[in-house]
């Protein structure tokens, strides 16, 4: 659950929270593309650092760190896999050398950069705004509604799952017993009531929607509208600049980006 913890929205008001979700998404996309473009450590470190100001302006450091901590397991896996597979499967096997180590670190950092940017996006965008952005991007309203309603019922279902778990435990269900498969099986008596009640809930929900003129007109209006403000244009400018700079370096200097380990060797020599 801890990975998702980092994606949970908390209502705060910061300049970053006020930004248009579409613009923020463009920014995340820009970071995403750049992170895929480069596989060297140096640009990925820059990419990681460039996002820190956003985290601090938004004031979501704690949640952000929690999401990174949640990603730690995956990051370790990516590191190990990269290290092992590059060692055995490349045509000209790199020996367990500083450059192989650096390559694995870079791949791990790429993943962390992606987690970082998406978590900043979700931490600073209210689901309501996100739904609105979807709507204004001409996504059919049914989908936007399904999205916001799903988000709205997450805490309700979580609470219900807890209640059912407590009720079943009170009847002697032991959730934490046995091996892995047994443990999964233990959760069946929790899942079934949860699913049944969710279905019943959805029926009630449908009734309530019908009673409030769902589908009365094709041309639905909206209480809120997203309008681009000055901050949004600034962020577009920043994202575009980063993107253009990255593209420029990628086209002309892709091959010349130094390995950090190669920078270290002269230092070591000097020290020796």
């Amino acid at each position: 659950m801890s990975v998702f913890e980092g994606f949970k929205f908390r209502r705060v008001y910061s300049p970053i929270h006020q930004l248009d979700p579409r613009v923020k998404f463009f920014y995340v996309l820009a970071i995403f593309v750049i992170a895929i473009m480069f596989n060297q450590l140096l640009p990925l470190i820059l990419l990681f650092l460039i996002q820190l100001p956003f985290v601090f302006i938004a004031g979501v450091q704690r949640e952000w760190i929690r999401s990174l901590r949640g990603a730690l397991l995956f990051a370790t896996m990516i590191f190990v896999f990269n290290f092992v597979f590059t060692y055995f499967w490349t045509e000209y096997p790199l020996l367990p050398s500083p450059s192989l180590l650096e390559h694995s670190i870079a791949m791990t950092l790429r993943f962390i950069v992606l987690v970082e940017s998406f978590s900043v996006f979700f931490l600073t965008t209210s689901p309501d705004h996100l739904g609105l952005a979807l709507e204004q991007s001409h996504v059919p309203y049914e989908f936007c509604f399904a999205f916001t309603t799903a988000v709205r019922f997450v805490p309700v279902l979580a609470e219900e799952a807890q209640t059912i778990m407590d009720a079943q435990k009170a009847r002697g269900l032991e959730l934490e017993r046995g091996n892995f498969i047994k443990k999964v099986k233990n959760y069946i008596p929790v899942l079934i009531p949860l699913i049944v009640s969710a279905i019943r809930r959805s029926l009630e929900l449908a009734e309530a929607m019908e009673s409030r003129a769902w589908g009365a007109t094709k041309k639905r209006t909206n209480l809120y509208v997203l309008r681009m403000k000055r901050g949004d244009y600034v962020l577009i400018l920043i994202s575009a600049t980063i993107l253009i700079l990255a593209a420029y370096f990628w086209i002309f200097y892709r091959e010349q980006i130094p390995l950090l380990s190669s920078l270290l060797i002269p230092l070591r020599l000097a020290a020796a």
Partner: protein
Amino acid sequence: MAIIETANLTYTYPGSTRSSLQDVTIEIKKGEFVVLTGPSGCGKTTLCRCFNGLVPHFYGGELQGDVTVTGLNVTQQAICDLAQHVGLVFQSPENQLFALSVEKDVAFGLENLGIPRDEIQKRVDWALRMTGITNIRERAPHELSGGQQQRVAIACVLAMQPDVMILDEPTSFLDPVGAQKIFDVISRLNKDLGITTILVEHRLDLAGKFANHVIVMDEGKVMLDGEPRGIFTSEDARLIGVGIPKATRLYQVLREKGVSLKRIPMNPEEAARSLREVLTLD
């Protein structure tokens, strides 16, 4: 003038062998505060669903007889057209709120109708003010108490400016204080705005005093229909298992013991007054 009329209404849910409503003929006048009561499973909720078209359009099943609401024949109207005239508030407060903020939820019905934005804003503000929840307009539904959620649900319906408001056991998940607040809001809307109100309720101690028309149902049939004092003191109501107000019950018990109060009390204050009259006479 009758705002809701049913004539020989009989309805069976799909897959059911017994009719949930049998030969229901009632008439509700404009501006009335109706309390609809009866034991669980007596067809109260089904009758409410008939008034806004959920029965038969949403549930299917077989409907005989006529239902007319604000001059519209329910069987021939779509639910979304009826929704503009009849607002329905459900029992479970959390399952009728689906937006991520109170404001957005209240606006939901109006958005569906395609009403211009500034008009929506105006009506949302008004509905929030009428139900006394302006201070929580930006909160998410799961941050609210049950009572607050139910007031939001009422505001949602109110914003659509219905002629009739139906509340299906709106307080069964609430504590007495929360319930009292809901009843106060409902009765204010009924008195000040003249919205015809139909309240389905078991616990008549709190709700009984607002009613000026009581309908008692049992096993799909209307058993009693009329003025509250008469119904609450009738022997039939007690036998059906209607939770008649304790003050009225006191009147009955005293009558059996040979003490007759001048007026039939509906709440403790009235009972106290009547008792004082009797005591000073002796």
